[in-house]
């Protein structure tokens, strides 16, 4: 059956070839080829016109190493420690050492959350000491330097003088009240 159909196609091709112009001949040839290929993909009717090119058919080189999000302790070029960009996209370091973050799920399914819950989701909160210590190790010294931007919204939070551990300026001396 296959042979019959093929023969009919070839006959059709031969029949059309003689009276038509060159352009038309090419299109009709292509048409026949397309139909046969579409219907009978097993039949390899495309004869190789030229010798196959080695370089074109060769598999393209893929990058051997895939990127990871973990900390690089020694870079290839300078042997320096590198920061984890995923941390810097999500966290912010206050100058007294704590890191702040957003809350998980703050953009998810807001239609079913009540206003107090949505209010809490909008807040930015502290990480705890262990987490801050880990994040400190995941970024380089550049991110631990103090910054003095103009109109910085985090400016009031960079210094925490209320507690002994994070105090930076000496405690003002308040003389005891005179008791009479």
């Amino acid at each position, binding site marked *: 059956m296959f042979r019959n159909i093929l023969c009919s196609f070839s006959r059709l091709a031969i029949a059309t070839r003689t009276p038509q112009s060159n352009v038309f001949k090419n299109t009709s040839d292509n048409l026949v080829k397309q139909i046969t290929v579409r219907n009978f993909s097993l039949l390899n009717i495309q004869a190789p016109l030229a010798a196959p090119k080695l370089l074109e058919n060769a598999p393209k080189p893929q990058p051997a190493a895939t990127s990871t*999000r*973990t*900390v690089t302790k020694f870079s290839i070029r300078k042997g320096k420690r590198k920061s*984890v960009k*995923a*941390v*810097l*996209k*999500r*966290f*912010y370091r206050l100058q007294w050492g704590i890191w702040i*973050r*957003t*809350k*998980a799920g*703050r*953009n998810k399914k807001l239609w079913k959350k009540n206003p107090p819950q949505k209010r809490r989701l909008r807040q*930015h909160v502290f990480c705890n000491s262990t*987490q801050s210590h*880990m*994040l400190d*190790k*995941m970024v380089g010294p550049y*991110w631990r*330097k103090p*910054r*003095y*931007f*103009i109109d910085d919204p985090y400016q009031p939070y960079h210094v925490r003088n209320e507690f002994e551990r994070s105090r930076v300026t000496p405690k003002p001396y308040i003389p005891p009240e005179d008791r009479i």
Partner: protein
Amino acid sequence: MSNTTEKALNLLRYLPRVCISNIRDNPGAHKQARRGRGQHGGDYHGAGNKGAKARQSYTRLGYEMGNNPFYLRFPFEPYYKGHHLKRQYPPVSLLNLQKLIDTNRIDTTKPIDLVAIMNTGLFRLYPDQQHFGFQLTDEGADIFSAKINLEIQWTSEPVIAAIERAGGFVTTAYYDAQSLHAMINTKKFFERGIPIPRRMMPPPDAIEYYSNPANRGYLSDPEKISKERLVLAQKYGYTLPKLDDQILEMLKERKDPRQIFYGLHPGWVVNLTDKVILKPLDEELKEYYAS
């Protein structure tokens, strides 16, 4: 008995008895201490015996064994957006300034600028870290009482009010990184033997601040500034003190927008060894440094 045997027996009579303290060890009974290699005699260098700590095969930082890791758990927030482009102005408070004046680290009979503040040796500035000078903050504004002609890079309204109430003048002025390098360590800069650069104009986003008379910008109209002084005095409820003629000249002294040091113009070379100042004579150079 022969003579020799007798002698030997005689000798034996005076020798000590064979006991545990004077016999030699069996061959191979005593082991030599081994000389270990390394700092502490070939031990484990504080890493213990076996396990992840001995092999230093810790889990990577932040990894939580199948959990969604803490450092990837939260949504993005542009906390650090544009951090490398924004200008920074390290703070100097009015309290600091008053203390510097009281301890004679700053001379108030001359105009005070960044060079005077840097020459106190108490402040650091890093132009390569996007530092563009100092900002004067309002801490100690209530006790500030010095009559000064101050040039600072950034201020706020209460600071301007505090200085002008005391009878002083403030100007906010912009310096580019190259000019700041010259001002931070003046001696080092002059020793390089290069001409004083001309000060660049502020970047487009800072032009507005430095040409605003309310900020006492160095590019604003002096007449508008004197009007703004009155406006601020009314707003904060003080009267501008009358100015003495003796120090008026000092208080009114301002730099040219291209000038970096008081009394020195761009293009001049200061020779510290010969104690001479070299000025450009070429017309082209003069035109370049004046423009």
